[in-house]
């Protein structure tokens, strides 16, 4: 389209450097306008993005911050968080991240604590979170995390404080993910919450295997596991020094999935050792929900599963540590 060289007729009147500077300055101004528009859309449509939730959460004392991966996410679907709050008489904020390992959990809690306080952090712990950068550094670098993250100097500081999170700063500060968000005019609700939460899963062995293959793609490298293990220990210690109790929950999973998870017994033993060493309670609910009718897919609780689990186990626990 622009294959031939056509020197502009008017441009020669203006010196090159001045022209380039003016072009850049106007471009910068227009970029700022785009940024402001995107930021306004974030505030208009934002809902479930965890950074958005922290930024817009009322400045009050929270009893519980829930972190973890996708097994904790359904406890924030629809009105479930409010149901939990009413049943337990507590203030809860759920900052779990789909596919989020230990590093996203640390980032979320640290960011939350820049402006809020809490008595407890409930960690829905999955073994896959310790296995691969896919659920940690790579997950953080996923643009989806910052699609609706409002501009907040506190988050910039938090990202800067963690060397493993720094590479996300450019994207966050420039607001590129927000400007480029293809779902900018859509409600901030996941497909799982919108379409699947009320479904009942009919087990298909192939899909279960595929899911495990996805979460545990290869035998983990020992140094990687050790790195995330150390991050978890540091996280637990830092909470303790801040006077916050860490409560670890092993989320409910169907038996057919537990059987497929590699080295789950070793992981459980390791967590129990850590719990003794660092003095935090561990609740293993992995075998508590056995029926497939309580799951909307291979391993995530559906609405009735969440309600039942909350009624039978979670609310009591929340009341106990209130």
């Amino acid at each position, binding site marked *: *389209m*622009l*294959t*031939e*060289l*056509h*020197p*502009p*007729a*008017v*441009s020669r009147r203006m010196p*090159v450097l001045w*022209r380039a500077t003016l*072009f850049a300055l*106007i*471009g910068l101004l*227009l*970029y700022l306008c*785009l940024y402001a528009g995107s930021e306004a859309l974030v505030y208009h449509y934002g809902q479930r993005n965890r950074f958005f939730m922290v930024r817009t959460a009322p400045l009050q004392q929270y009893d519980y911050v829930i972190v973890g991966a996708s097994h904790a996410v359904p406890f924030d679907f629809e009105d479930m968080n409010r149901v939990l709050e009413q049943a337990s008489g507590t203030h809860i904020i759920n900052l779990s991240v789909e596919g989020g390992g230990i590093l996203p959990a640390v980032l979320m809690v640290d960011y939350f604590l820049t402006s809020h306080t809490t008595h407890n952090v409930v960690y829905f712990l999955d073994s896959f979170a310790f296995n691969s950068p896919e659920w940690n550094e790579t997950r953080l670098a996923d*643009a989806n995390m910052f699609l609706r993250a409002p501009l907040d100097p506190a988050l910039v500081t938090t990202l800067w404080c963690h060397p493993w999170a720094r590479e996300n700063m450019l994207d966050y500060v420039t607001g*590129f993910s927000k*400007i*480029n968000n*293809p779902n900018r005019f859509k409600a901030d609700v996941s497909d799982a919450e919108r379409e699947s939460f009320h479904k009942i899963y009919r087990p298909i062995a192939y899909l279960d295997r595929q899911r495990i293959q996805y979460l545990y793609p290869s035998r983990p490298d020992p140094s990687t596991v050790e790195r995330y293990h150390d991050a978890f220990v540091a996280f637990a210690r830092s909470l303790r020094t801040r006077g916050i109790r860490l409560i670890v929950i092993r989320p409910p999973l169907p038996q057919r999935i537990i059987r497929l998870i590699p080295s789950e017994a070793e992981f459980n033993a390791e967590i129990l050792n850590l719990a003794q060493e660092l003095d935090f309670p561990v609740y293993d609910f992995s075998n508590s929900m056995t029926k497939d009718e309580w799951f909307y897919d291979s391993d995530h609780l559906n609405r009735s599963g969440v309600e039942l689990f909350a009624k039978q186990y979670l609310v009591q626990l929340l009341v106990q540590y209130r």
Partner: protein
Amino acid sequence: MLFNSLTFLGFFAVVSVLYYLVPHGWRWPLLLITSCYFYFTFQPEYLLLLAYAAAVAYGGGCLLAGRQGSRSGRMVLACGIGAELGSLVVFKYFDFLAGSMEQLSRPFASVTLPRLHLVLPVGLSFFTFSCVSYLIDVHRGRIATERHPGRLAVYVSFFPKLLAGPIERAGPFLAQLAVPVGFDADRVASGLQLMLCGLCKKVVIADRLAVFVDAGFRAPAFQSPVTLLIATYFYAFQIYCDFSGYSDIAIGAARVLGFDLMENFRRPYLARSVPEFWTRRWHLSLMAWWRDYLYIPMGGSRVSTSRRYLNVLVVYLVSGLWHGANWTFVIWGGLNGCYQIARTALGAAPGRVARILRLPACLGIALSMLLTFHLIAFAFIFFRAASLADAVTVISRIGTALPRLGALARSYPWSGEFALSVGLIAGLLVAEAIDERVGIAGWLSRRPIALRWGTYYGLIAMLLVFGVWGLNKFVYMQF
């Protein structure tokens, strides 16, 4: 370091600034080092292959000096071409040939041939063809032997064209490399505009369409005919925007550095016939290569009609195979060859039919464009499908569902993203139609600064707001 990455933009900015800061004598080492680094970021181990191709071209060129037209010259040329194409055969075609031989021999004996399972070096076909064209041009006496190994290496490895062309000829390139170029703001601006245009085609259109195309071609047996039809139409535009986008960025980047590369695309979907599409509008540098180094040496058009048709078919079949070691590409090439032969055989018949039917000229033109587009899009099914079976599935599922397409379309999940994709394609076609008539670049250059800059800001905003920045590779890099 893909062209559609921030890393490349940073790399290119640094290279451009350094290029104009260093004296002319230092420019070729700078371009050589930066080109090697560029290739290194893709496949470090295959840098040796690039060096091998350049060394063979250099050695062959030196040996050919003074032997042009002689028997020994022909021997040197044959050895040089053999050595260049040898790497292409080993890395690209060995496993394919082994598999095909096994299948052919199956009725007679069960033979298992060894496989190399080599990863295809990125851009191999492109830089190999650059080297071959250099050797042939030296042999023909069209250009002098390049005695400076560094400059020849820059010609082979010049990073803007290294991965997917244009397949530039050595003569014009080396001549430009020898001449000192000063900083020319208008030239740089024009190069940047072209890069911006190419980036928009790739990131805003091609990668957006890729989602629909991939969904259709991933498992065609399980897709609805509407999904497959959309994938087929969109693929024609995806590959165009992807490849011409790449070419625009390559030509623009070269222009910023003071080089003029060959034009590679000229609004191909405005072609009124398949021959026009291939000879005057699509992948021009490759088609010119085939013409100069294969079609004309085989006799070109100055032979009997049947021989001419055979020459055309051979060129298209080989061109298909050049794209990939798979029978799907051979069929794709063969189909295009057949189209070309059929159109040539028809001669003036379509025009006469239009006159008999008293079709208005504009309607006749529109119909011929539409027919050409559909023929090309149909052939692209073979180009895109993972296997012949998949291609046949796509065609049969679309073909059998044509009568009930309306009913099927009602259940298709039409989305905003689909509407945006169609809108972008329409916008592209309108822009190209205007460009065909008035030349947008020339027209724009005569407009007030506000309109020109507004256009550039608009394109940049499109990149930011609608770009699909998943760092998707360029389709032609795999060849």
